[in-house]
């Protein structure tokens, strides 16, 4: 049984220029303890997907449809009151910019403590003790002192740690991390990624990691879902996806990132370009969403949207021409 089962998620926004189909019929699941990465370029609907899971989409102008089953409950059917009991408790979230979830006028201890008192009914004393314990866990030096400090007194890397401490304080079943290291230097990113892996091992939480960095994906994901223009275009276990990407968009993405060390031997290679840019989501696209940029597109692609099909074990692709069968070695 999957921990999270998302079916035909559609999150649309009403805008002056028309309906923005930010997420347009996306289905996926996350198993217990699993790390699923969602990748894609900016504007493809990654954040809207994660905010939809948390039911944090402003309605209106937004509207969420489909179903989001989490531990046998459809989150979309819950009242706001019931949802509040889940947020920060069973499912918690960390963002790229920690200040969006840290309250600038509360000390670090109060913020972590508040969550614990609300969800776990701890008293003030116990909540503070647990807050210090969490800060220790995420590797913040002098936790007993830091717990009395305000977010602005901390460095970027430390704020990210505080946010992780807060997100994990109630031992969530599912952690949603939206570009958690994008704003950080690689050295701090390495610390945070290591921390997330280590904590996951201990707490056993499943992770939905949203990122545009394929290096980060390779480093910590088990399974990957590739999004393009509000739709899922490919999904596969991480090794399989990098070894044999089958959607032209995924192939394009992988060809466009240089790999450290790859330009040192042999002739300099040009980076593969994906021509053009992501289409507007405000116009209905009938055919394949990638057809406008795809070198292989035919009339069929421009007219008929390809369905998601299993092309190899656990490998799903939405492309009329994606090869079928096990990966060629």
């Amino acid at each position: 049984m999957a921990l999270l089962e998302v079916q035909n998620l559609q999150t649309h926004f009403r805008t002056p220029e028309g309906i923005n189909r930010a997420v347009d019929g996306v289905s996926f699941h996350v198993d217990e303890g699993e790390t699923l990465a969602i990748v894609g370029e900016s504007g493809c609907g990654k954040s809207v997907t994660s905010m939809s899971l948390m039911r944090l989409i402003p309605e209106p102008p937004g509207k969420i449809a489909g179903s989001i089953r989490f531990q046998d409950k459809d989150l979309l059917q819950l009242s706001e009151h019931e949802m509040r009991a889940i947020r920060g408790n069973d499912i918690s979230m960390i963002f790229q910019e920690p200040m969006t979830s840290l309250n600038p006028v509360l000390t670090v201890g109060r913020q972590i403590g508040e969550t614990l008192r609300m969800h776990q009914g701890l008293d003030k004393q116990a909540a503070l003790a647990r807050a210090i314990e969490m800060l220790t866990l995420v590797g913040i030096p002098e936790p007993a002192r830091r717990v009395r400090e305000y977010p602005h007194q901390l460095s970027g890397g430390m704020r990210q740690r505080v946010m992780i401490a807060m997100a994990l304080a109630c031992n969530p079943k599912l952690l949603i991390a939206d570009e958690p290291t994008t704003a950080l230097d690689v050295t701090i990113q390495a610390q945070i990624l290591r921390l997330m892996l280590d904590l996951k091992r201990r707490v056993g939480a499943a992770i939905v990691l949203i990122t545009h960095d394929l290096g980060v994906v390779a480093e910590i994901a088990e399974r990957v879902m590739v999004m393009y223009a509000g739709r899922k275009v490919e999904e596969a276990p991480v090794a399989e996806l990098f070894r044999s990407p089958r959607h032209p968009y995924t192939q394009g993405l992988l060809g466009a990132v240089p790999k450290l060390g790859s330009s040192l031997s042999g002739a300099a290679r040009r980076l593969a370009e994906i021509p053009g840019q992501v289409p507007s989501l405000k116009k209905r696209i009938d055919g394949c969403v990638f057809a406008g940029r795809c070198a292989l597109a035919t009339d069929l692609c421009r007219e008929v949207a390809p369905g998601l099909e299993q092309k190899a074990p656990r490998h799903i692709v939405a492309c009329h021409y994606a090869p079928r069968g096990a990966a060629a070695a």
Partner: protein
Amino acid sequence: MSAPLLQVNDLKKHFPVRGGLFSRKSNWVYAVDGVSFEVERGETLSLVGESGCGKSTVGRAILRLFDITAGQVVLDGQRIDGLSPRNLLGMRRRVQVVFQDPFSSLNPRMRVRDILAEPIRNFGLAKSSAELEARVLALMDTVRLPRDVLDRRPHEFSGGQRQRIGIARALAAEPELIVCDEAVSALDVSVKAQIVNLLQDLQREFGLALLFISHDLAIVEHMTHRVAVMYLGKIVEMAPKQTIFSAPKHPYTRALLSAVPVPEPGATRSPTVLKGDVPSPINPPSGCRFHTRCPFVFDRCRTEEPEFRLAGDGEWVACHLDALPELPGPPGDPRPVPPNSTPVE
């Protein structure tokens, strides 16, 4: 042999900061604190390092966006750090800049046509309005923008297209050196590849030199000739890319490189996870500035600043160690996390 296009000698830039709200005593941010390097014609030198290490300040010093604290900036044999604004004009033409977010540097009310015409006019590069128009059109072709968007304004373009406009504006002045300050950092993967390829093509076509400031080490490796690694206002290592990426000589370079995640699942690597954050440039550590985070620190590092010395063919390094020791720990496990250990900052 002719002089290098750009020579930077012991450049320093210190910014004053107020000690506190009521304190009269002012402190200094030692943003750039003694940096020397050269850039040859047609060459790409990249400046890398964690944020706050002084990369942009070096770039802005070269562009003469402020007066420097000490040192020399020499362009084609002529010192430009002390030039008066009037004498600076010619130099301004020869060194241009492309920023991370061209939007903030493009006037939102101007049409692309005028954005590109402005430098051509300012530097007197066209003799007639017909020639001006021809140059503007040629620039659009050069950066591969369609000519029919000339009358649009910056907000009507995507991030990648705006960056092309920013590059076209830089090229309009017919520069010899372009400072690219995180010029591709904010772009999406596929667009980033387009712009990187464009910059490389332009370099070949016009023999441009690039001072490429970036924190993206994979992109740097892909497009640079040489690399200078900065830490807290100083260059700790500078070498041709082949050497610096395959055999770094400074512990900081090695740590920085090993922290870059590789897009290759299951790749075995043993990152040197650096402890803590970069110390404050207001009060930089004594001796070697990296000593507070260095895995190989010994007594001398805490008191004596290592000299920036020649350590091989075109390789410069500032470290008391002659060779980097092997890393401790089994190389087989990419992420050794001992059970029940607390990760330390």
